[in-house]
C-alpha cells in the first residue's frame, strides 16, 4: 500500500455526490427522443425570422414547410427528419460526482439504445467504417467528456445528421492568413456545400487550439441556442459579418435560390500555437436538434 492509499473506513466518496448510472441511461434515452421530435424554440424562432427575411417565393414556401413539418413532428411525436443521426453526447461531469452502479460510458450507450428503439428512431450507425454493417441500435454514441467544477452532471444530446456533417471541413491556416483567411474559408465551405446540407443552416466554427480542438469547438458551437451571439463582442461581430457574407451567396432555402442560406453563425475560439491557425467548420441543417439535462 502506498502512502496515497485511503485510510480504513474512508469510502473515497467524501464530498462526492453519487449519481446512479441508471439515471444517466434514462436521461439520455429521453433526450434522444426529445431532440428528434421536439424542435427547440430557438430553432423555431430562427425559422420564423427567416420566413420574414426571405424574398424568394420558393424559399418562403420551403421555410413554411419546414415550420409545418416541425410542428407536425412535435404534435404526432415522430422524428422531424428521417436522419435521426449519430448520437453526439456532450458530457460535463462535475468533479465532485461519482457515478455508481455501472460505467458512465455504458450507461450513455444504453440510453441511446433505449431512446432509439422506443422512439422508433432510425438506426444509422455502422460498426466498422470499411465493413459498414449496421450495429442495429445506433450505438456507439460519439461522446465528448469535460470535467468541470461542481457536483452536477450535464448531458447534452445532439443527434447529428450526415447531410450536413458530410459538408463540414477543417483547414490548418497560417497566422498570416488572419481573420480574413478564416472568414474566406468559412464562406467557401458553405458555398461549396450548396444545397447538400439542407439549408438554411447553422454554421459552427471553431478557431484555434490544435486540429482536433478546432473540430470540437465547432461541434460545441452548434449546441448553443440558435442565433445566440458569442459573449465576447468582437467574436459576436465576426459571427454577424460571416452571416451577412454567407447570406449574400444566394443559395437560399434548400439551395433553390434565396436570401437565407444560414440562420446563424456560431464561433468558438481557443488559444493556439504561435505557428497555427486551425479553422473547423461544422455545418448543421435547419433541424438544429439539441437537448440537455442536468442531473
Amino acid at each position: 500500500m502506498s502512502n496515497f492509499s485511503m485510510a480504513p473506513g474512508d469510502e473515497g466518496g467524501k464530498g462526492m455526490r453519487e449519481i446512479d448510472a441508471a439515471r444517466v441511461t434514462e436521461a439520455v434515452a429521453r433526450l434522444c427522443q426529445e431532440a428528434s421530435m421536439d424542435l427547440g424554440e430557438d430553432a423555431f424562432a430562427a425559422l420564423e425570422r427567416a420566413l420574414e427575411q426571405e424574398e424568394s417565393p420558393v424559399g418562403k414556401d420551403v421555410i413554411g414547410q419546414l415550420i409545418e413539418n416541425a410542428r407536425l413532428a412535435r404534435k404526432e411525436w415522430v422524428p422531424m427528419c428521417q436522419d435521426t443521426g449519430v448520437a453526439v453526447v456532450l458530457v460535463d461531469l462535475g468533479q465532485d460526482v461519482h457515478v455508481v452502479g455501472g460505467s458512465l460510458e455504458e450507461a450513455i450507450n444504453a440510453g441511446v439504445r433505449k431512446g432509439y428503439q422506443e422512439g422508433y428512431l432510425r438506426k444509422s450507425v455502422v460498426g466498422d467504417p470499411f465493413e459498414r454493417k449496421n450495429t442495429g441500435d445506433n450505438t456507439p454514441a460519439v461522446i465528448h467528456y469535460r470535467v468541470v467544477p461542481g457536483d452536477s452532471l450535464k448531458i447534452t444530446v445532439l443527434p447529428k445528421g450526415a447531410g450536413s456533417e458530410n459538408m463540414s471541413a477543417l483547414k490548418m491556416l497560417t497566422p498570416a492568413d488572419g481573420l480574413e483567411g478564416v472568414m474566406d474559408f468559412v464562406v467557401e465551405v458553405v458555398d461549396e456545400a450548396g444545397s447538400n446540407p439542407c439549408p438554411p443552416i447553422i454554421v459552427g466554427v471553431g478557431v484555434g487550439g490544435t486540429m482536433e480542438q478546432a473540430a470540437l469547438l465547432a461541434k460545441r458551437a452548434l449546441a448553443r441556442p440558435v442565433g445566440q451571439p458569442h459573449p465576447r463582442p468582437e467574436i459576436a461581430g465576426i459571427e454577424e459579418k460571416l452571416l451577412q457574407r454567407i447570406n449574400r451567396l444566394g443559395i437560399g432555402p434548400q439551395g433553390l435560390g434565396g436570401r437565407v442560406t444560414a440562420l446563424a453563425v456560431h464561433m468558438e475560439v481557443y488559444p493556439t500555437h504561435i505557428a497555427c491557425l486551425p479553422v473547423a467548420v461544422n455545418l448543421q441543417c435547419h433541424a438544429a436538434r439539441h437537448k440537455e439535462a442536468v442531473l
Partner: protein
Amino acid sequence: MSLKQVTTPLTDEVVSDLRAGDRVLISGYIYAARDAAHKRLYELLQKGGELPFDIRGAVVYYVGPTPPKPGQVIGSAGPTTSGRMDSYTPALIRAGLKGMIGKGLRSQAVKDAMKEHGAVYFAAVGGAGALISKSIVESEVVAYEDLGTEAVRRLRVENFPVVVVNDRYGGDLYEEGRARYRLTDG
C-alpha cells in the same frame, strides 16, 4: 413556374415536358433506394443480372425512412443527399431509370446521362420527413431486406410534392436560383 401532376412510370413524353423550376406532384409507385442498395443494383447491372424491380420508366427516391410507429405506413421519410449515388446513377439511367428524387447537387456525369437518355432529377424538401411521409400511402420491402432502412421499398405515393432541379435539356434550378439571388461585392 407551373404546378404539374405526373403519374409513374414516367414516359419519355412526360420527361420531355418537365423543366427546371416546375413544381410537380407525383402519384403512383416509386422505389426507395439509397447508398447500399445502389451499390448492389449497380453491381448486378455490371454482371448482367436482372434487377429486383422494373427500372424502365421508374422513379427512384433516395430515402432511408425511420421505422414506422404502430399504425403508420412508414416513418419519417425525407430525401437524403443524392450526390452519394452519383457514381452508380448513369448505369441505372442507361438501364431505363427516368426519375430520381433526392436533394443536393448532382455530378456532371449524371447530368450528361440525363440529357442523353432523357431523365429528370427532382428535389424534395430535405428535413421535412414527417410532412413528406403523409403523401406515402403504401410501403413494401421488395429487395435487400437485410439492409434495414436501406432496403429497396416500393412506395405508393399520392401527390408527392417535388420540384424539378435538373431537366433533360440541361436546365439546373440550383444554378439558376443561386445566380438570381447571389449578391456580388462592389
